[in-house]
């Protein structure tokens, strides 16, 4: 009880510090470096650049912001860099759930505990996609067919979010699949369009163009309720018309990928509070809404204990799958 209340107190303190423009609060004195743990053009890179653009446009801080890409090793390069910059409040690391998932399954030289969590700013949804002319109309059809033959499922990277979800589908649907890792979801989408794969589990933005172009279509979304309707994507359908996977008998209630923001370890609470506040200001701008809508993500803002709890829950889920698959590194 004592521990919980101190936790809550400190969280509240951070929140207060964030909302109050206290005079004593820390302010940056030199240029800030945004480290995108992805190559140029990837989702994480787009987020970092969108935030940079908003900060510059609305003059949310006096200091200039530069974006650098450290996407080597599936993002590990950026996190290792963050770890090595301990105590430096001028490096902001943009990543995904990779920050805690990757150390579970590969021998990378960092863990998310080496970093200071700032916030989870947007959530990418996952959908189950098949080729446009595939005979399956629902996830149920798909699973029935998958039970009799081994389907080829494509995805980005190995032992990462896409493969974890694939293994969860195997378990929930009692099927066996061959998972084929590519460098990115965009690559997997093209492979599906060419008929080299049976399905993939891309985020909306990764396959939006392909859906509009009539090369592939979503069967269901891994979310507790349908996505917001938004504009029509094809002549007849929009995101809100895609049924949830649970509706269709594929019992995976929720699977999301948060876009996360971190500072290096050993920074002061004042410094962390400054960035939490900065990200909140970014999120309040109309440009942010625009970015969220165009990239078909879900607007979210988790920080403090909420964010910690999210990480813990996600870790449990991934650890379970990784343990069953024998992926865990000692």
């Amino acid at each position, binding site marked *: 009880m004592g521990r919980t209340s101190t936790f809550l107190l400190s969280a509240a303190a951070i929140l207060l510090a964030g909302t109050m423009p206290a005079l004593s609060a820390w302010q940056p004195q030199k240029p800030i470096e945004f480290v995108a743990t992805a190559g140029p053009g990837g989702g994480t890179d787009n987020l970092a650049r969108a935030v940079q653009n908003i900060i510059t446009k609305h003059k949310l801080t006096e200091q200039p912001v530069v974006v650098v890409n450290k996407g080597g090793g599936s993002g590990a390069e950026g996190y*290792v860099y963050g770890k090595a910059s301990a105590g430096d409040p001028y490096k902001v690391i943009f990543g995904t759930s990779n920050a805690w998932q990757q150390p579970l399954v590969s021998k990378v030289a*960092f863990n998310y505990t080496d970093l200071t969590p700032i916030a989870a700013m947007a959530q990418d949804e996952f959908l189950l996609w098949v080729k446009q002319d595939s005979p399956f109309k629902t996830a149920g059809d798909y699973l029935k067919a998958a039970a009799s033959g081994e389907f080829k499922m494509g995805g980005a990277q190995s032992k990462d979010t896409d493969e974890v979800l694939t293994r969860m589908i195997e378990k929930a649907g009692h099927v066996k699949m061959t998972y084929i890792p590519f460098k990115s979801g965009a690559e997997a989408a093209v492979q599906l369009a060419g008929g080299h794969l049976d399905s993939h589990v891309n985020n909306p933005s990764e396959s939006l163009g392909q859906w509009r172009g009539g090369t592939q279509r979503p069967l269901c979304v891994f979310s507790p309720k349908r996505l917001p309707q938004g504009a029509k994507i094809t002549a007849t359908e929009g995101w809100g018309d895609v049924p949830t996977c649970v509706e269709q008998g594929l019992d995976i209630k929720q699977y999301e990928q948060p876009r996360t923001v971190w500072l290096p370890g050993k920074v002061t609470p004042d410094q962390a509070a400054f960035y939490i506040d900065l990200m909140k200001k970014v999120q309040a701008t109309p440009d942010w809404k625009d970015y969220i809508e165009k990239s078909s993500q879900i607007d979210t803002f988790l920080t403090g204990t909420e964010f910690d709890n999210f990480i813990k829950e996600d870790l449990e889920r991934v650890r379970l799958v990784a343990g069953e698959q024998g992926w865990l590194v000692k």
Partner: protein
Amino acid sequence: MDNFGELLHGFSIAITVPHLVLMVVGVLLGILVGVLPGLGAPNGVSLLLPLTFGMQPVSAIILLSSMYWGALFGGSVTSILFNIPGEPSSVATTFDGYPMARDGRPTTALATAFGSAAFGALVGVILITFLASWVAQVALAFGPAEYFAVYFLAFASFVGMGGAAPSKTLVALAIGFAIAAIGIDTVSGSVRLTMGVDELVKGVNFVVAVMGLFGIGELLVAVEEEFHARAVSTKIEWREVFRAIGRLPRHSVALLRSAAIGCWMGITPGGPTAASFMSYGIARRFSRRGKYFGAGEVEGIISPETADHAAGTSALLPMLSLGIPGSATAAVMMGGLMIWGLNPGPMLFVDQKDFVWGLIASMYVGNIVAVALVLLTVPVFAALMRIPFVIIAPLIVIICVVGAYSVSNSYLDVVMMLGFGIVGYLFKKLFYPLAPLVLAIVIGDKAEDAFRQSMLMSKGSLGIFFANKLVTCLIVAGITLLLLPLVLQLPRLWRKPASAATGTTAQEKAQETAQETAREKVII
């Protein structure tokens, strides 16, 4: 001829005063980032990207793509003058461009490179204009097995046709593959060959490797051999610029062949790097002056440059129509498209006609603007060769150090770059070819991924490489190119015992060895 009407409409969008100004600005900035150490097209374009958020998508893409053309041209400048390729795709240009520049003909080398690059780009754009829908279909037919077959073909065309001893080529390839394997493996997700250095998880960046291998390696050799550039005429040689361009049509076979290779590799996912290497390898085999390649041959510059730009240009098509970026720069532009609210994919051609055809028309105009501007700069850049070696040598070291550091702001990269410099020096001294090493570093991991993805799909059966006509043709072509030199050698092997029987004089033998060494020196 629907497309033709669309193209005319596109020109009406591209040829407006604000857009022409944007093109000139873009090209000039591009040349700058292309020439400056370590910046390169992808970085330049991402630096410029935030400025375009408020612009119309057409204007934005015109600015960014013009910058791309400028950077591609600018990148050839450092390859030719200092043996430092800024982009993977301009490595093959150094093989003959640098010797020619060192031989006192930098103007000819630069003008030839620019002229043939412009030709390649033009062929690429024409292809995009008239075959857009067909091309998109071809690209879709490429699964992992086909990807692997294309990479295999690129390796085979270079290895089989290389002039160095096959065993040395193999050693160079193997080292390259090992370097490409460093970092996280896509297929298994595990960390490989980092040797306890945490930061190596990112893998070895290509720029770091080539700056060391070529820039520093060449410098070390030059210092040892008391490098003296041949006297370069002090006059600004405008006439030579036009003479070099005027001579291009004489090499029309090489131009057309290289453009064809470039377009093919651009549409299929081989990309510009594989294209330029393949084109160079094939030119060396089929050119009448093939054995002089590596010593400053005109066709040795034409072939890689034409193919590089043809591939670079036609690679934009898969990006627009399928959403697969063919190069790092295309990936940044694709990110831009999404931020501007456009979604790359088949529907772009239907929904965003103004954008697509404005871009395609701007590719014609932008390339003409770019080649006109770079040709104007040739004498200025060529004049750099007149600077004495004692000044230029430290400058090259600075370029390489800054370039390596700015790849990802890491000191480790600088150390690795210097290490590669020593490797490059040793390779030269021991007559090992650098090209297969570089080729393996650049496309080795892609080839490996494609091979293992194919194996996952086929559950370990090699039959997947003969599963359809397309992949079978590619694999057979690769094997043929690989074995061709061996087959051609056979008659010579038959003859050898015969000549040994008649007896060769010691003098003749000595002559032969001298020729061998001379030839080996020519091999990069």
